């Protein structure tokens, strides 16, 4: 089990639990990978968050009250209008990347 040393808890700028939505085209595959790894990254950061996965077609509803949307660069234009902070992840398995970007977006 990969459990890197937990960092000191980062207080979030948002009320916790922070609501985060991971998206993909179909909602059955890549968004779930992104969701799982985002949960791990948030555990590292010590941020309490509620992370869901959905398809880009449903993101308007799913992310209506979300603070952050996690996406690949290709899907950003399909998200449409949102008040959420859209965070682009290049490598869905790179916990360092996901942790660093979530720390900036949410911390």
């Amino acid at each position, binding site marked *: 089990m990969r459990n890197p040393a937990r960092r000191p808890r980062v207080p979030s700028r948002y009320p916790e639990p922070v609501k985060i939505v991971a998206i993909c085209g179909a909602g*059955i*595959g*890549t968004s779930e990978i992104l969701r799982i790894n985002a949960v791990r990254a948030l555990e590292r950061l010590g941020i309490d968050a509620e992370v869901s996965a959905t398809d880009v077609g449903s993101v308007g509803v799913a992310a209506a009250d979300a603070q952050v949307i996690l996406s690949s660069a290709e*899907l950003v234009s399909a998200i449409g209008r949102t008040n959420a902070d859209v965070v682009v992840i*290049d490598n869905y*398995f790179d916990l360092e990347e996901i942790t660093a970007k979530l720390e900036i977006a949410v911390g």
Partner: protein
Amino acid sequence: MSQILPLDQLPDPAIALKAVAPDWRSAVRAAAAALEASGSADAAYGERMIAMVEEYGPYIVIAPGLAMAHARPGPDVHAPGVVLVTLAEPVAFGHAHNDPVSVVIGLAATEADQHVASVAALANVFNDESVVPALAAATTRDEVRALLAATGAGSGA
């Protein structure tokens, strides 16, 4: 919940090695062929997986060298399935960071929530960045199963 077998028990038809694919569509079709061979989906599902990329771009290339082809559940999916295809030569999907692709995972689900168990297992396997090149170099299906088992087992995170 999914009835998909654990990744280290993928049956032979669900693993294709060194598939010849001159372009990304052929690479996705190779995954579709494995899903068809393992009784999971019709060829039509492969065309829907291709349509996802045509519509949204190469977002399915989620890590260096790795594409996860999939589409929504539909009448062309008969059983949930996961397949793994390695390519004889890496193929560009047009992704800004993660090209070229040498391993394609194909995923089919009959209900939107069905993916969860197998996809969680995939997350455990591929968090180790050495796995994609090792899979691409594998010459036997047992080697592939061993790679999926060695890294996927015991990780409850």
